Structure formats: structure tokens, C-alpha cells
């Protein structure tokens, strides 16, 4: 792959990944302030068990 093509491809991949991550994060922030905290706490991960 030519250096120029590689750079373009890398930029496209990074833009897509960053966009997806930002949307994901924005969704979480919005959902956090609008969710039922009882269910939020109920679904918490507890790797240590009971």
C-alpha cells in the first residue's frame, strides 16, 4: 500500500472509531441521567460474588 493511501485509510479508520465511541459515550451519559437507578444498581457487575 502506498504511504499516502495508508495514511488516508488510517485517518478514515480513526475517524470512524472515534465517532462510534463518542456516540456510545453520549448515549451512556444521556441514558444515565434518564434511567431508573434501581435497575442500574441491580445490574451492577460483581466479579467477587456474593
Amino acid at each position: 500500500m502506498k504511504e499516502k493511501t495508508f495514511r488516508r485509510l488510517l485517518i478514515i479508520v480513526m475517524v470512524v472509531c472515534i465517532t462510534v465511541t463518542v456516540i456510545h459515550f453520549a448515549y451512556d451519559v444521556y441514558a444515565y441521567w434518564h434511567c431508573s437507578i434501581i435497575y442500574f444498581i441491580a445490574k451492577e457487575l460483581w466479579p467477587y460474588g456474593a
Partner: protein
Amino acid sequence: MARRKTLVWQIVLILTVIALFLSFNVGLYAALTRRLSNNFSGTSQAKMIDVRRYLPFEEDSDLARVNATLKLSGELPVLDGAAALVPVYASVINAVYPSGSVTYEGGAFSDDNYYGENFAADSKMQYKNTVRGYKAIVDGETDIFFSAAPSEEQKAYADEQGVQLHYEPIGLEAFVFFVNAKNPVNDLTAEQIRGIYGGTYTNWAELGGPDRPINPVTRLAGSGSQSAMEKFMGETPFAKKSPLAFFGASIGYSFRYYMEGIVDNNEVKMLSLNGAAPSPENIRSGAYPAVAQFYAVYREDDPNLNVKALVAWLLSDEGQTLIERSGYVRITS
């Protein structure tokens, strides 16, 4: 050969970038998104309480029942309230209002309603919940509002509008703190709770729990539980929490009846405070230290005579029995 090496290196770099972002998003999904999905829509908010279970004049509803000597007629007060108090004021309507006082848009209750929008404009039962409900009583859309104490903003709105509200305490309730059922911590002191929200304690290990950050969850400003929490904190200011806390083990707050009687989710547990569980006995005796009154709120200038008659009935033995049978603690002995 050199060209091939470069190509491999380029592909590896691109795949590494994708893998890094992918693993970050998968981690975020496991820690947060999974817990929020299907949990924040308008429907889930409306389902803070399943109003259908508490519809007056329905034989199979879960309402408390008493043989009321008061039977209202004439101009019937419009009742509204917080989610946790729907079972109380729906039971009141069922006990003292004539049948036909509760009407629905489209003629029947719909499970698709958000915040009780399904109640018709002329219905004597409404469900706006705390934030919208306090505004509605100040604006004269409601006659009696059943709720926890108002927030400073809600009081200020009444003052701005020149409306004098009367807050009649009609029952007792415990303000409770809850954690995931797997959290080994079962009891905290009131000071430790203030320390958590004030930023003194940031890890459960400091309180006899596992080595995990504490995520102190707060509620929407103006909600009944947030106003109660602000009162509980007193002079202690809320600390700004670290972003990492979102990935820790949470603590939240609510009212006992909402946790126990309405949501009843066995994956969370209520904490004892100062060694006292939030049981009706401990609320009544005062052993549980975070007891809140709840109120029948009405405008002082409401000309409807049935308003004061109904509030007086709520304080009578019949009214208090109804409150007790609804799952709350009576305020008069």
C-alpha cells in the same frame, strides 16, 4: 520483500487501532451501557410505577380498602401525587369518591401512557409525579398533591406566583439507601453516608467492603428523593465525583415503600442505618434515623370546601388506617 513487510506493518497498525477502540467500547458496554439499555426510555420512566395496578373502582386493583364514612359529592378535588404515593391517593379516591370520578383519554387506561397522560382532563385522578406535579398545584390544575417535602426551587416557584401552599403531614416514610444485593456492606451510619456523598469515603474498603470505588448516585433535581437527600446532607456539600466512580459499586437512595412495595427488585438491598433496618416498627419508634413525613399539599386559597374535609379525613382513624394498609406508617397514633 521490504514492500511486503511494510504492508504487514500497515495492516497490523490499522487492526491494532480497531482492536483498541473495540475493546474500549466492549468494556464500556459491560460496565455501563448494558445496565442502561432498555432502562431510560419514556416508558421506563412512566413505569416508575405501574399505575394500572392502582386504578380506582377496579375490582382487581391492588388498592388498600376501608369502609369510609366520608363520601364526597359536589365539587370533587383533583388529586395528584408522586410515583410512590399513587397507591395512597388512588385508594383515597376509591374509598371516598363516587365511581366515575376517574376517566381516561380514549375511554380506557392505556399501558402506553407516559406519566399518566392517559388520565382525561376532567379526571379527578391525575399522575404527574413530583416535578410536574408541584408546578400543577401552584398553577391551580390540581387541588391536593401527595408528595414528600418540596425542593427549594418548588417553594420558590410558589412564592414567585404568589401562591401560599399548605403542607399537611399525613404519614411517615423511611428515606432509604440501597446497594447491589451482592455488596457485602449491610449497615452504615448516617455520618458515613454523608461522608460518601461529601467525598470523605471514595472506596468501599474504607467502610468494611471490597476494594472498589464508590459510585454515589444522585437523582434529578426537584425529585422527591433528591430533595430528601439534600435535607439529609444538611450542611455537608455534595462532592463532585471522579469519572472512575461510574465504574465502581453504586449506592443510591429512595423511599422504603417505593423500593419494597412498588419496585421490589431482589437484586438490590436496603441498608440499615445506625444498626436499624427501615422497618415500619423502627420508623414509628424513631430508631431508624432517616424518617421523612409525606404531605397532602393544597393551596391555602383553594375555595373548594371538600379539600379541607378530605385532608381532615386523611388524619382521622379511617384515613390513617387506609394509609397504613397502603404500606406506609401512620402519623397519628
